[in-house]
């Protein structure tokens, strides 16, 4: 539904204000929806055209319940796409919707200019619709049970990506199928090198000895590939697409899961920055240009709600405070070698060099960082103390949270380990031909936190079902080596000595 005239004139003004403040956005299209529609769109991850799967139905039930019982409410939903789509809630007040629009322009600028989004698919709306068509066709052809079973497996692997490739200078790895036209065929190791020819010419166009030569060369290359010449690999989905024996339709489904996971990955690794940036800008735009006098109280109320800290550290709040801190520090010159070296408290407090580079610095930060490097670069000891951050643990006996320390290094370490690798464990493929039996060997790079065992086992089974040979995962549980082996539908666990 299009915007009512009252809102669309505000939209023009906010857009102009964003532009004047230096935000560079894709075209942004706002749509007005009611609460149930918004829940539905959110259940599909923002794409009303997404493929059918029960997981979306589950998400929908959860969202409906929490908005009906007033547990939580979605304020805004914005899609990284060119043009950018954003949804406004029709039941929101004018003030709230103005706020949401200002917020959306912040996100939109971030999507367009942050380095981790550089390879992002910008026609995702269309892509998702194509994926949905493919999935539906698969369902028609192979039955809903088979497709659902395969999708369930594939989706349980969706966080096994290599987040490092997102900002790399080389384009994202997008595996190509090795299949012929036959839907059910599982490709042999060698592709078809035969050129098209008439019967009587075949011997000359495709001489047998040359064919044999090609085949052997290809086999040798494959062997080499399987030894992982580039070192261990983290993008397990791509690895499965390249090496697992999949029928064409399975390959297509897995490829869809891989592409969509890659699309959502940048948002996963820039949550704090993205929300902080958008919060910074809705605040700026609202206060500078958009807010009318009679709206101040409503505005303050809503903003207080979005920045409130409940059960968890609020990414909106943390991100916003960090951007404000950067701006203040670079405006007054409280950074760099001289400032760091100064240990006279009074002098530090009174430090004032009219540098005025605050705005420049935050635009720079939003372009080059993800959450990990952002926190690493800008979370200072001062900030940590000013905001009273601490590390807590849950007491194993009483199950109560207990404050452990306020030491800066520990706080920073805890924060970073929680978000590194998109908050997921780092799992790498080490060997595709483990024990020379075609088994897949994975290693969990343990960084102080154990895997959740029941989930790890279930996920391994899914991996083994796709790999079609045993899959081995090495990890540590309570500082002891463990080795899970998934084969033929069961998982066993070993404690190798040493």
């Amino acid at each position, binding site marked *: 539904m299009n915007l009512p005239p009252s809102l669309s004139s505000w939209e023009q003004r906010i857009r102009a204000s964003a532009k004047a403040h230096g935000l560079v956005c894709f075209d942004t299209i706002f749509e007005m929806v009611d609460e149930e529609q918004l829940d539905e769109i959110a259940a599909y991850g923002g794409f009303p055209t997404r493929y059918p799967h029960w997981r979306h139905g589950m998400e929908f039930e959860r969202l409906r319940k929490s908005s009906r019982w007033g547990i939580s409410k979605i304020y805004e939903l914005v899609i990284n796409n060119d043009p950018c789509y954003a949804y406004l809630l029709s039941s929101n007040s004018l003030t709230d919707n103005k706020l949401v629009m200002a917020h959306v322009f912040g996100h939109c600028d971030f999507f367009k200019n942050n380095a981790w989004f550089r390879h992002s698919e910008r026609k995702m709306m269309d892509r998702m619709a194509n994926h949905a068509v493919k999935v539906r066709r698969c369902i028609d052809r192979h039955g809903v049970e088979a497709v659902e079973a395969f999708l369930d497996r594939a989706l349980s692997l969706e966080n096994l990506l290599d987040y490092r490739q997102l900002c790399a200078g080389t384009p994202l790895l997008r595996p190509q199928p090795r299949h012929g036209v036959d839907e059910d065929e599982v490709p042999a190791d060698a592709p078809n090198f035969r050129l098209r020819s008439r019967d009587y010419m075949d011997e000359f166009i495709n001489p047998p000895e040359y064919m044999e030569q090609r085949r052997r060369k290809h086999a040798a290359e494959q062997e080499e590939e399987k030894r992982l010449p580039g070192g261990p690999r983290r993008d397990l989905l791509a690895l499965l697409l390249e090496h697992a024996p999949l029928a064409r339709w399975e390959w297509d489904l897995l490829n869809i899961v891989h592409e969509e996971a890659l699309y959502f990955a940048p948002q996963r690794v820039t949550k704090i920055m993205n929300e902080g940036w958008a919060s910074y800008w809705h605040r700026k735009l609202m206060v500078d240009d958009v807010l009318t006098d009679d709206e101040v109280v409503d505005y303050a109320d809503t903003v207080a709600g979005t920045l409130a800290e409940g059960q968890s550290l609020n990414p909106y709040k943390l991100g916003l405070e960090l951007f404000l801190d950067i701006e203040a520090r670079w405006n007054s010159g409280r950074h760099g070698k001289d400032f760091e070296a100064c240990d006279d408290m009074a002098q530090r407090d009174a430090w004032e060099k009219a540098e005025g580079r605050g705005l420049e610095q935050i635009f720079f930060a939003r372009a080059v960082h993800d959450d990990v490097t952002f926190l690493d670069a800008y979370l200072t000891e001062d900030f940590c103390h000013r905001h009273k*951050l601490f590390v807590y643990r849950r007491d194993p006996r009483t199950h109560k949270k207990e404050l452990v320390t306020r030491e800066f290094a520990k706080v920073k370490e805890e924060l970073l380990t929680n978000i590194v690798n998109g908050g997921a464990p780092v799992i790498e493929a080490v060997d595709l031909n483990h024990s020379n039996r075609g088994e897949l060997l994975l290693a969990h790079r343990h960084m102080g936190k154990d895997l959740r065992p029941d989930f790890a086992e279930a996920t391994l089974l899914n991996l083994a079902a796709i790999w079609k040979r045993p899959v081995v995962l090495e990890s540590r549980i309570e500082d002891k080596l463990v080795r899970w082996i998934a084969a033929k539908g069961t998982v066993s666990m070993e404690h190798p000595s040493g």
Partner: protein
Amino acid sequence: MIGPIEKDHRRFRQIVHGTIRRDLKRYVSKGELLGRSAGGTISIPVPQIDLPHFTFGSGDGGGVGRGEGGEGEGEDGGQGEAGEGEGHHILEVEVGLDELARILGEELELPDIRPRGESDIVSEHTRWSGIRRVGPESLRHFKRTYREALKRQIASGQWDPANPVVVPVREDRRYRSSQVKRRPESRAVIIHMMDVSGSMGTEQKEIVRIEAFWIDTWLRHQYKSIETVYIVHDAVAREVSQHDFYHLRESGGTKISSAYQLCLDTIRTRFGSGEWNIYPFHFSDGDNWSSKDTAACVELLRTSVLPQCNLFCYGQVRSAYGSGQFKRDLDQALPAEERLVTSAIADRDGILGSIRDFLGRGR
């Protein structure tokens, strides 16, 4: 129109039902669903329906928070609000009791109950479905009346298409009339009897409580209107409320015949008109006071109780003190009686099996 989300949502509900069905045994034996029902639905925690991923274990559940407080201080001491990292949520799904009964029926392969004497238990309903030529003006059927008038005018040649005026006369008038419809009625009463003598411990009562809940759920699914009567007995029997039935703790001897006598009296005075499907359930640990009393019980059952009810179920819960003699006595004395079902319940895992014994006959 059915949108895409409805389809996905429906599929999700199907999966939930599948999960409940698979884990039914656990739900039944743990008794964790009791007391979760409100207004005809029950809220069931369904773990493990989400797709598994490689994630970190809950471990020590640490994180970063902000606020006041010193080292080592806990949640109650002036601390900060909280930290980061999400806890796992267990999905709670609401399922109607009817739905739950259907799942139970599917899993235990329970046959639908054929109500007793479908042909002879009838109730009368009046429906305004007839038409008569006489009646009060307030019930005049306007449309039918005009149709009759039109027919008459066409037949007698008075009808003029150019001037279509229809005038009904006395004979054209039609009136609505009520007709009596006879419908087979199924009403049922469940009579729960429980031995509360000293030998029935807390665990035994809990088993009875769980089993009674599921039996109620199934029978409610099968009958439109159902009543429940609760009787407890030790050496004497009396009728109690539902709450008392589950919470009462008596001690003393056991005279089962007292309960059967009260059950019979209840049937005669309140449910004796022959319109009721009657389901007495008796739970005990199988210890009776004397063999003379057991003989009296058998006599009561054979001559009076059994002929009146659809099914008489005796569930014997194993207890540390009970001899379990009563079930053997019943089986011996009334071997050919198909309205009598006896079942031994060893422990909580035996509940499902005994429900199948009781309700598997479709009576």
